[in-house]
């Protein structure tokens, strides 16, 4: 792998384990991975292979036990909790399998949430984000009033409203039917023109739409 300015993310010798009862289980064993700017990559692997763990580490929802993660050549693993909150706000967007929208809020309000937490008063970006995912006309609806595909598109709008550098999508089509899933992948593909997209999936067909597929097997990269 070559190093250069186009490398947005560099994962270096990252290991991560969890304590399950009295046992320490290592999920990732010294992973190395580089992702370029505006690249759309898929991380594939069987259940428990560590793909979601890797995605959470890239988004700094979790910290590695060892190794480093560099973002634009800056090591982010040593950042303080406060710095990480700011990093996630401004740099990373998350999309989850179960959408994870706040049920009491409308589509507009769900999308506006990151702006509220970041203290941004200008909410013009909300309408733009909803327009980008084709849901400007559904902005006043609550999640329960939206279909699964629409909810996931709202979740994607929420993830891109801060114009992040990286969009991390964990099984974004896992709760959707095949046709709807394809629409979501198509949307992610179009978004990768503006940002790096890292998608975790176990669906080979959907992964084939990405620029590159990274396989994780038993906590190691098997590209």
């Amino acid at each position, binding site marked *: 792998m070559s190093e250069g300015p186009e490398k947005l993310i560099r994962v270096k010798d990252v290991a991560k384990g969890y304590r399950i009862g009295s046992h320490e289980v290592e999920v990732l064993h010294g992973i190395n991975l580089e992702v370029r700017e505006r690249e759309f990559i898929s991380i594939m692997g069987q259940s428990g292979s560590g793909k979601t763990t890797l995605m959470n580490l890239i988004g700094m*929802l979790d910290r590695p036990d060892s190794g480093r993660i560099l973002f634009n050549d800056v090591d982010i693993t040593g950042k303080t*909790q406060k710095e990480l*909150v700011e990093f996630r*706000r401004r740099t990373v967007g998350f999309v989850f399998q*179960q959408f*994870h929208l*706040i049920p009491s809020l409308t589509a507009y309000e769900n999308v506006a949430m990151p702006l509220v*937490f970041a203290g941004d008063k200008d*909410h013009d970006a909300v309408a733009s984000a909803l327009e980008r995912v084709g849901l400007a006309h559904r902005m006043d609806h609550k999640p329960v009033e939206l279909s699964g595909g629409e909810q996931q598109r709202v979740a994607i709008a929420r993830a891109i409203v801060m114009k992040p550098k990286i969009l991390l999508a964990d099984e974004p089509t896992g709760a959707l039917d095949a046709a709807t899933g394809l629409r979501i992948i198509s949307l992610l593909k179009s978004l990768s023109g503006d940002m790096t997209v890292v998608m975790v999936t176990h669906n080979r067909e959907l992964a084939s739409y990405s620029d590159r597929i990274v396989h994780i097997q038993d906590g190691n990269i098997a590209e």
Partner: protein
Amino acid sequence: MNLHSIVLKDISRRKTKLIVAVLGVVVAAAALVAVVTTFTAATESLYEESNTFGANIVVKPETRSIPLVAGSTSAGSLFTGENYIEESEIPRIYTIENKANLAVVAPRLYGIAELGNSPVVVMGVDPEEEMKLKAWWNIRGHWMAEEGPEKTEIMVGSDIAGPMGLEEGSLVTLKQGDVYIDARIAGVIESTGGNEDGYVILPLAASQYLFGKEGKVSSLEIRALCNDCPVEEMSRQIMEVFPGLEARPMSQIVQNEMTMIEHAQSSAMAVSVIILLVSALTVASTMLASINEKIKEIGIMRAVGASDTQIVSMLFLEGAIIGALGGILGFFIGTGASFIAAPLTVSVTPSPIWMILPAVSGICILTGMAASLVPARKALGIDPAEVLRSV
């Protein structure tokens, strides 16, 4: 949209939880308000009742006693000095500094007369003033009305009325020397356990006529009306105005009043503190249960950029809203409850104490926020990666 609206929308969605948590505060606030309202009414009532106990300053002519001793044996005392106060001097009492506290100034003239063939103690009073001083007397009949020195209405104590077979409307004659007064019994005073049980009470002018003491009174019974009467000071002021008189504060009465009030207040405070603690626990447990339900949402919020401070602020705001709603509702329910409970328990009718509404709301808001501390601590321990992975 802001943090406040996120919280408001969230708690409005969880109506059942909101109602349970608010009810916890409502119960505590209502109990608090009911206790305070009832005790305040009881205390005021107690104070009003204590005002009817009688005088708390007695003014008498100054007398000196000379002990009579025969060898080593005491043979009593010999009292010297003027035994009467000039009635015309009484208005001067209203020149003392604390004149505003003089609620009742009741002149009395004592003497012994014959009723039938029996000697009785006669007390001449100003009916209007005496009625204020002895408002708690139960009279079979009515208070006497002055009709004139020779023919008047009188009242008799139960110890006289019973043995002599006197009742309302009975006609009697009081005799002192050569002076006679025909009187009609206006009322019989039901037994009080006090001296009046053995008194014949008649209007001051009639008693002065009976005893030939026109313009003179034996003593003044004074009721000072205030929460913390400076009766000692007032007694001193009275003696300054009447150099030949002795004004004695009956401080025991005042002391008893204050003790009763303090006891009532202490009880109210103790109950209030216990209720507040129970309230805090109720809100904390409800919010804790709420946190368990909201773990996923808190994880999402942290993933999309919420800081620890923002998460804690939202929980504090939720606690404050629950506290405010509970406090305001509790005030009205507690006030209503006191209207039912107070007449049954302390035989008083309370009034709403509007001035405690902000205080009760404030206390409930603080209680709600304090109850948020444990849930907030739990929320800060939520690992978004773990939560979002497991749901």
